[in-house]
């Protein structure tokens, strides 16, 4: 259920080159970022920070953040090695965010919607009271204003440091989505790498449409827990988007590069607009071509830093 250690090693150092987690290829940072963190050779979709997701999804300048003053509280006085309230402060300073979800109104290719995006950089995108409250408010706001709701999930699950309070956020968010369904509101969940535990087992799975980015790990229990329980090796591709599609669990897999157009198309279907016009790729600001130097054989660890071994 709970937030584990996905992605700890994915924090990218400031170097020119990045090693692909999937194929091991060396990616030129500038090009990699222009491709919104998708590997140019194998197509692996890296976890996208919340603000980058919003920039990639919403029309420029259209996103208006809401519920920003909401702050997490350490109701339990939780202390593993670092007290939770200290951990929060440190993470807030490091990320510049108050918690693991950013919500607000936006337009996507001119179509107004409510957008809620999880931020994996904040304690593994774990769901505590702030994430729960923001999802609930976003659903309530969307229902009241008759706005379609798009939720981008990216989470290791519930936030253990908030104990059963975090567990109950599953109920809070599902209750709000029930309210939205009853009001006839239209909701889209996009599951990105990784979406597990209490987030998959709550709001991310009860929207009208369930989309996923390619290769995303999506499931209830973590693969390690399952492997330990059944004492067997897991099948290849288990709990990945393609597996879920094959098992009938999701509606579609959407490439990151097409996400904005696809979302606009769905929003058009959901709001009585023209899907053909909405889907047509908007004229892109042309990027200056990037000159990619020859890739180094292996990324050299920086001086003074320990090399990180997988």
């Amino acid at each position, binding site marked *: 259920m709970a937030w584990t250690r996905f992605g700890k090693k994915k924090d990218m150092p400031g170097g020119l080159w990045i090693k692909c987690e999937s194929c091991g290829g060396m990616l030129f940072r500038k090009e990699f970022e222009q491709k919104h963190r998708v590997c140019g050779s194998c197509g692996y979709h890296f976890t996208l920070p919340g603000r980058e997701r919003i920039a990639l999804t919403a029309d420029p300048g259209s996103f208006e953040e809401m519920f920003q003053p909401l702050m997490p509280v350490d109701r339990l006085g939780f202390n593993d090695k670092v007290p939770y309230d200290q951990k929060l402060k440190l993470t807030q300073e490091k990320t510049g965010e108050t918690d693991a979800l950013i919500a607000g109104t936006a337009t996507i290719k001119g179509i107004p919607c409510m957008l809620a995006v999880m931020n994996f950089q904040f304690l593994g995108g774990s769901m505590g009271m702030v994430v729960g409250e923001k999802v609930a408010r976003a659903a309530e706001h969307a229902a009241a204003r008759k706005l379609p709701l798009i939720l981008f999930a990216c989470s290791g699950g519930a936030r253990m440091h908030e104990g059963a309070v975090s567990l109950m956020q599953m109920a*809070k968010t599902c209750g709000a989505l029930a309210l939205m369904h009853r009001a006839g509101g239209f909701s889209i969940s996009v599951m990105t790498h990784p979406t597990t535990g209490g987030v998959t087992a709550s709001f991310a799975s009860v929207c009208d449409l369930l989309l996923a980015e390619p290769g995303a790990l999506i499931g209830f229990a973590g693969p390690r827990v399952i492997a330990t329980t059944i004492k067997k090796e897991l099948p290849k591709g288990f709990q990945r988007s393609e597996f879920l599609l094959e098992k009938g669990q999701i509606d579609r897999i959407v490439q990151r590069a097409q996400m904005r157009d696809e979302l606009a198309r769905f929003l058009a279907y959901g709001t009585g607009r023209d899907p053909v016009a909405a889907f047509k790729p908007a004229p892109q600001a042309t990027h200056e071509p990037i000159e990619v130097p020859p890739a180094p054989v292996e990324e050299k660890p920086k001086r003074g830093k320990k090399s990180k071994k997988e």
Partner: protein
Amino acid sequence: MSEAAPRSPVPDALAFERPLLELEQKIKELRSLASGTHLELAEEITSLEDRLRRQTAEVYSQLSPWERVNVARHAERPLTSDYVQMMLDDFVELHGDRVFGDDRAILTGLATMGSQRFLLVGHRKGKTVKDRLACNFGCAHPEGYRKALQKMRLAEKLKLPIVTFINTPGAYPGIGAEERGQAAAIARNIMEMFEIKVPIVCIVIGEGGSGGALGIGVGDRIGVLENAYYSVISPEGCAAILWKNGDKAPEAAEALKLTGKDLLRLGLIDKVIDEPLGGAHRDARGTVDRVKAQIVEWLTELGQVPVEQLLEQRYVKFRGMGVPLGA
């Protein structure tokens, strides 16, 4: 996880029970001695019984959260099947999710208890080794949650309230469970339980293991037995992740604030239901009677509430759990 220690009759996690069990044993011996001979032992027995009562009360009032977790898992603790047997005047089991199978880890059926009729939904752990295996030790698969939902919709149609008994270490983590949408099944139950137009009473009778518990845990009244727990993750799992050491489960249990008392203070449940002296495993009858009285009280109360108000209150209840700063 540590290597299995040599088996002793009382597991280490229940070490606090040893002096009580010794006293109980001594009283038993004295009693049989008294009945077999003409020795006058009544006075001694009474004094030992007094001591046992006092000591039990003392031990049980000072249990650590981890010790309570182990009482919640006690092999002799009354299970859903015991409540069915001891509490109900009629019970008709209903099987299957109508899609895939009949998950033995969740029991559903129509129940009569005095003048009350309701749908009973409960995790089932099993009594014998064979039973326990068939029930996956109370860890349900998606079809279990779907079965529960399908029967809850039936209850709604028949205007029967719903009583759920929560007692699971967690939803089953396995290949089939994931293939058949464990997360989605739990999520759907949680969402739809907000919409079911009959009163719902949930009682955590043992283990309230995370999403697998909440999957039948959205209701108008939530009760937790004194030595039951309800948690976002098992203490062992939490210790393995945050302490990087499964042996730190006692510390994790403490930190997670998973006992009834804590949950009540956090505003997540309505009531801690007292257990008989020395825990539910010492007195199944007494435990069942207390739970029964609580169910009657709540169902009577909720029966008076108009449906619209009921659903509104149910939403407000969960909506108010975990209020952030600045809300």
